């Protein structure tokens, strides 16, 4: 093993005290002088024309400064496709869509005036599912789609409710199925749901007299906010400053553009005064975007020896009323469409489909948790039909170095050891004892497995930067454009810099408030790429600072900079370590005893930009969009009561090949958090709609997430195949924990009851109904 000082050490996270004592400051804790408060009036219909909005009464209400409706901002914005007005304009496309905003002196006055706004609607036909949306005669949710601007990487189909179609054509699908001895066909589905981050979305915006726009926001993507506002409102981009302090959970829900565009417009409407908008929990669940829904059709074939030969995949993503990140989720799901399996012949159509549901944005796993549910269930169905143990089947078909991804990209030497992950998980869950065991006449214990893979879905030029400055005591200030979203990257970055200088981690001070005017550019804190990219930049910045330290120190030490080494707070001769100089005498420039000074302060600069990435061929999907792959295996053990479908999840285990562990404890916690979130999604979550497609569980009284006390025993193990181009050999692991859980849970429960459970969430009643269904 490498002889590191702080890499691989579980140092306590930098923000542990603030987070555990409740002293962390969030956006809603800020109340600058002159602050005004905004509240949103939302749609009571899922698809309707807005006939009129009467604001006359509300305008007279106490403390109200301004009321704005869609008529005030007849523009459409978007992340990848400009399809969404800041406030509903002429029509509403989902239940909960904001139709008007009130700005008042206090939050109470803003909210009190909401009920005085009268909106008159005329209902339109409702599209309640992706399959209905794709019917020939389906009404169009966006009849003006041809006028929307969109990025080249997505392919909307004009005249349909299709916001994107990404295709994969690998090998020859027809010949593939001809070679198949066993074929299964099945469909899978789950409804839209939500992230349920602890902190609801919140933004404060003001415009200074000289026109500078200052946005404080709970955002994972301050630089995207800046560039999209500049682009959409024709503002010189340097006049926009976006500040993001640590946020109370992102999970993808705070990437992209959230409340920022609207709050900028609101501040502009009141002469640039600071305006705060904080989502209520209800609005955070349904008015702001959530987790995508999906229906999938899978046809999968293997030889009688159990080798996968062909996969025909149709992924129909329910993006709801607007495209947001969902168009790219459907693209990412195509790129990774097969899951981590060696399949020579693949045909995949991954569609992003408009419906009258709340719209979707990025969610932890970004297309992968969704496709993995369909694939992992299919793998179990196929291995069952073939009569092979599902773990053995997975081992046989797991992707390894030299195999090709659906994009025909060859899995390189950085490919993690998936077969070993499977074996480890098998040991952890005791697969050998059997995957179905009768406990009593009505109780069964069963196990299910799910594999995962993920690569970041991001632009080909995704970048990161790090700037290091020094204090007089030779401690280091580390600045990046990364945002603390709960993941703990700042701690890992501090460890990387501390390792480079061979100093304790507490000598590295991370700037935890990211500010787009002072921080180096960073794409976004998303796609599990922060540690990988900013980590590489931190190494380059450290090397840059070390070179400067050596140069300055070489002058009074009368030697060549090449003879020097930096470490332990000193700069010294490599071959004669006793001869050297303390770093604190050099970091601000060296000062001779007579007062003469030389060189000046050290400023380390580091950059990283993703390497050798390209787009994909629109007809075949061939290309190189994947930076790195993280692979892993997961399994779940359940105990099911066959008399009523209720069940307990006894344990959830995971083995992931993450390369070098920078901070083992943080990595472990990140994975456990992922397992819990994946489990909560698969077990509990999903919006319930009435027949008018209104969400009936739009609060936490009725939308249930996993609670303390409901968690199983978690076990996590890591493999350490190094990522050659990662910092110290590390690769991304932020999102991956969620991915295999829905597949593993549904596989375990399906095995327990002896019938397929192909829809989420897996409620006891849905299991009871499946048990009682007559066999077809």
């Amino acid at each position, binding site marked *: 093993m490498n002889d590191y000082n702080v890499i691989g050490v579980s140092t306590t996270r930098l923000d542990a005290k603030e987070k555990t004592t409740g002293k962390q400051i969030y956006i809603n804790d800020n109340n600058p002088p002159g602050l005004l408060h905004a509240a949103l009036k939302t749609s009571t219909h899922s698809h309707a024309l807005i006939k009129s909005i009467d604001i006359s009464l509300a305008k007279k209400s106490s403390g109200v400064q301004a009321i704005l409706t869609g008529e005030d901002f007849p523009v459409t914005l978007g992340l990848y496709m400009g399809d969404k007005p800041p406030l509903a304009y002429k029509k509403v496309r989902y239940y909960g869509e904001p139709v008007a905003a009130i700005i008042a002196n206090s939050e*109470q006055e803003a909210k009190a005036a909401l009920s005085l706004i009268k909106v008159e609607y005329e209902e339109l036909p409702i599209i309640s599912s992706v399959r209905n949306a794709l019917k020939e005669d389906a009404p169009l949710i966006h009849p003006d789609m041809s006028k929307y601007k969109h990025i080249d990487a997505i392919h909307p189909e004009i005249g349909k409710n299709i916001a994107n179609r990404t295709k994969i054509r690998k090998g020859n699908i027809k010949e593939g199925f001809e070679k198949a001895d066993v074929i299964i066909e099945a469909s899978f589905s789950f409804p839209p749901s939500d992230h349920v981050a602890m902190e609801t979305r919140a933004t404060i915006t003001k415009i200074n007299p000289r026109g500078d726009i200052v946005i404080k926001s709970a955002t994972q993507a301050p630089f995207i906010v800046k560039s999209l506002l500049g682009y959409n409102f024709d503002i010189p981009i340097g006049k926009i400053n976006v500040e993001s302090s640590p946020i109370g959970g992102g999970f993808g829900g705070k990437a992209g553009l959230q409340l920022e565009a609207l709050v900028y417009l609101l501040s502009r409407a009141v002469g640039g005064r600071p305006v705060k908008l904080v989502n209520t929990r209800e609005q955070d669940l349904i008015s702001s975007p959530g987790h995508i829904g999906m229906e999938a059709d899978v046809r999968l074939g293997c030889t009688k020896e159990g080798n996968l030969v062909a996969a025909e995949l149709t992924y129909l993503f329910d993006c709801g009323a607007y495209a947001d990140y969902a168009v790219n989720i459907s693209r990412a799901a195509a790129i990774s469409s097969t899951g981590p399996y060696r399949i020579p012949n693949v045909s995949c159509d991954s569609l992003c489909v408009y419906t009258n549901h709340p719209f979707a944005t990025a969610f932890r796993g970004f297309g992968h948790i969704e496709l993995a549910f369909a694939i992992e269930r299919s793998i179990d169905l196929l291995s069952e039909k073939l009569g092979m143990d599902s773990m053995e089947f997975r081992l046989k078909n797991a992707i390894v170095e030299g195999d090709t991804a659906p994009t025909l990209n060859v899995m390189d030497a950085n490919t993690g050891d998936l077969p070993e992950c499977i074996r480890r998980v098998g040991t952890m869950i005791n697969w050998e004892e059997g995957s179905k065991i009768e406990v009593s006449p009505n109780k069964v214990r069963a196990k299910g497995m799910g594999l995962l893979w993920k690569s970041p879905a991001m632009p080909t030029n995704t970048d990161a930067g790090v700037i290091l400055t020094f204090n007089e005591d030779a401690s280091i200030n580390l600045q990046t454009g990364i945002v603390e979203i709960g993941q703990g990257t700042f701690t890992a970055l501090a460890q990387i810099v501390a390792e480079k200088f061979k100093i304790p981690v507490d000598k590295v001070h991370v700037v935890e408030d990211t500010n787009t005017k002072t921080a180096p550019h960073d794409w976004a804190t998303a796609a599990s790429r922060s540690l990988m990219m900013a980590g590489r930049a931190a190494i380059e910045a450290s090397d840059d600072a070390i070179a400067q330290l050596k140069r300055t120190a070489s002058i009074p030490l009368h030697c060549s900079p090449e003879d020097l080494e930096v470490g332990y707070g000193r700069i010294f001769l490599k071959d004669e370590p006793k001869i050297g100089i303390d770093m604190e005498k050099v970091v601000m420039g060296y000062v001779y005893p007579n007062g003469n000074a030389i060189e000046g302060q050290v400023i380390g600069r580091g950059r990283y930009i993703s390497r050798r990435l390209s787009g994909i061929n629109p007809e075949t999907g061939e290309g190189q969009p994947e930076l790195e792959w993280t692979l892993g295996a997961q399994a779940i053990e359940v105990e099911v009561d066959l008399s009523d479908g209720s069940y307990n999840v006894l344990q959830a285990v995971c083995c992931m090949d993450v390369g070098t562990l920078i901070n083992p404890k943080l990595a472990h916690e990140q994975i456990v958090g992922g397992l819990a979130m994946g489990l909560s999604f698969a077990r*509990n979550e999903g919006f319930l709609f009435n027949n008018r497609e209104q969400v009936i569980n739009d609060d936490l009284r009725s939308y*249930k997430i996993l609670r303390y006390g409901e968690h199983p025993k978690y076990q996590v193990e890591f493999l350490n195949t190094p990522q050659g181009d990662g910092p110290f050999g590390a690769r991304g692991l932020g999102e991956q924990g969620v991915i295999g859980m829905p597949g593993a849970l549904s596989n375990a429960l399906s095995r327990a009851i002896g019938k397929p459970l192909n829809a989420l969430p897996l409620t006891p009643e849905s299991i009871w109904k499946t048990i009682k269904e007559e066999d077809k």
Partner: protein
Amino acid sequence: MIPFDFQYYRPTTIQEVINTFNDLDSQGLSPIYYGGGTEIITMARKESLSTKAVIDIKALPETKVLEEVKGELVFGAGLSLSEIIESNLFTLFSKVLRPIADHTVRNKLTLGGNICGRLPYREAILPLLVADGKVVLVGPEGRREVDINTVFDKRLLLKKGEFLLQVKVNKSVISSPYFNRRKEKQTLVDYPITNIVALKEGGKIKMAFSGVAPLPFRSIEMESFINNKELSSEERITKAIELMPLPFKKDHLASDDYRRALLEKSMKEMLANLEGVIV
């Protein structure tokens, strides 16, 4: 945030409560009694409840009584569920209260609020119904102490301005065999989709239910069948369910079929538990 203003009163004597009620009522403010506030606050926040005045009854010493008096266990309506649970004066009562809401909420949610509130579960009433307890009600027309089964019909039948002061059960019930089975849709912190509370006294089973139907109930007719040992165990359950005074509920938590299946299962477990009958 509650977007509307309302007046808040916290009287310290019963007379003061009555006077405050009459006063606010005559001003047309439609006052409501306030226990722990867990329902009023959450509903007011969502504007599904609007009031101009609330009268907090927790400052009345009578509402905080938690003790045995002359062979009766007395529970003040202003006690939090946690206070009752932790006292453990009546084990079945504690057992039924413990799954209501979550710990933080139970520290605020009061006995009176759970029984008299708007939410249709009112699980705190179940042990009192089967224990044939009494309620002390106070209002502009005075004070009355009555058998709970005469004034509870799916809801507590309060006169205008009347509020629940205390509930009482005979101490002897604490040694009676009991049974309780609560089922949720999935997570434990949720409303019951079926909740059955049963007590066996003098060889007879008494049963009360919440969650299975739109409102909670106890049914003497159902009990007559469940206690009819001339029938088979299966029949006792089937006939009792046929006589439910309200239909099975169906909502986003569960279908009526699933509720029926869970109730049948719970009743089988009840017979096994209280009579050693294996169905």
